[in-house]
């Protein structure tokens, strides 16, 4: 079993998420030519079932862009966009949601934002983070999140979720960023900060 994280470790992880998603917010703002607000991130170490609940209503229709990270840290980065917000985002980009072009645009947004997020994370920690190409899936929130947590959690019933939210000003458009480290890899994030358990 892995030991639970203490408050200082969770604070440090929250700060990591804050800086990483700040980098992503800047990228999104430049891409859309609009202001983007960044909500205070959450760092949650929870049993799997609670971690899924913390992400939102289980049956909510969302678009998820996921990419696996290798290198010094094994993790998944997941961008969650509520279905109606994905429509708004596509409209801002001048493409139609639900079409191949719309899907490809969402995937590309995910790619750019995810890479910015990782750059922020890498700059803070000095870790070499190697992203694989993103995959887009639109379905029920819980189906997406639980399947990814099943893959990252291993035998432990604990998920670490770093969650930050970007809001595009003046639009009903928000994007949640989730970093899901493979269990056993959390120390890899904390060690560069001098906080490994």
């Amino acid at each position: 079993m892995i030991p639970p994280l203490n408050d200082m470790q969770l604070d440090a992880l929250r700060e990591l998420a804050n800086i990483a998603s700040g980098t992503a917010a800047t990228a999104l703002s430049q891409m859309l030519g609009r202001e983007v607000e960044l909500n205070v991130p959450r760092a949650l170490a929870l049993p799997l079932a609670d971690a899924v609940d913390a992400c939102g209503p289980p049956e909510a229709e969302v678009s998820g862009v996921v990419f696996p990270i290798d290198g010094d840290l094994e993790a998944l980065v997941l961008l969650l966009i509520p279905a109606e917000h994905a429509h708004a985002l596509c409209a801002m980009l001048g493409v139609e949601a639900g079409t191949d072009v719309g899907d490809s645009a969402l995937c590309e947004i995910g790619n750019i934002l995810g890479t910015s997020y990782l750059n922020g994370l890498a700059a803070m920690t000095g870790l070499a983070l190697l992203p694989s190409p993103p995959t887009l899936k639109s379905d029920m929130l819980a189906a997406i999140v639980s399947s990814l947590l099943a893959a990252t959690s291993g035998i432990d019933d604990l998920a670490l979720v770093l969650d930050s939210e970007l809001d595009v000003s003046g639009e009903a458009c928000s994007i949640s960023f989730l970093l899901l480290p493979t269990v056993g890899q959390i120390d890899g994030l904390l060690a560069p900060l001098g906080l490994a358990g």
Partner: protein
Amino acid sequence: MASVRMGEIAVSRDPAEELVALGLGSCIGLTILDRGAGVAGLAHVVLPESQPGAGPAGKFADLAIPELIRLLHSVGAVDRRFETVLVGGARMFEMSGGLDIGARNEAAVRAALSHYRISVRAAETGGNMGRTVRVFVGAGIVTCRSGGTSAVTLLQGRSAGRSEAQPAAAAAAGARANLAGVPRGRR
């Protein structure tokens, strides 16, 4: 309504109860009913195999099935009347090198069931879509819904005459099921 989340198991003999696993992806929602006793159980299985020191029993196929059977027995269910429905086991993401946990989950659940000589009555598994399974305990109905569609019935309600369970309670639960937009079972 009792929400059965990742790694959880619930059993009930309350005719008004509804057991639900919302948004199953690669996980399996395993339902076992003994409609003669008016009992139903639902396990939300996450992974095929446990290891020593592993988390809750409901998370792993090899531990979840004996635990579900034990809990069903404790509320009066009898093996020979078991009816089983499998939902889930999807492959949500096509990731290079990613293992298909959904398919492995389904294989492990089926293997464990056959070890206990339990056959599968109905299944809605595989593919690449999320699913919600609902079990109406009193009516003995099991439904499945995937994203953006309406629910389909995988296990119809009990037929009259074959059952000795309380008709009033079953009818009440059936009415509840109708309210939820679920097709009425044969009566």
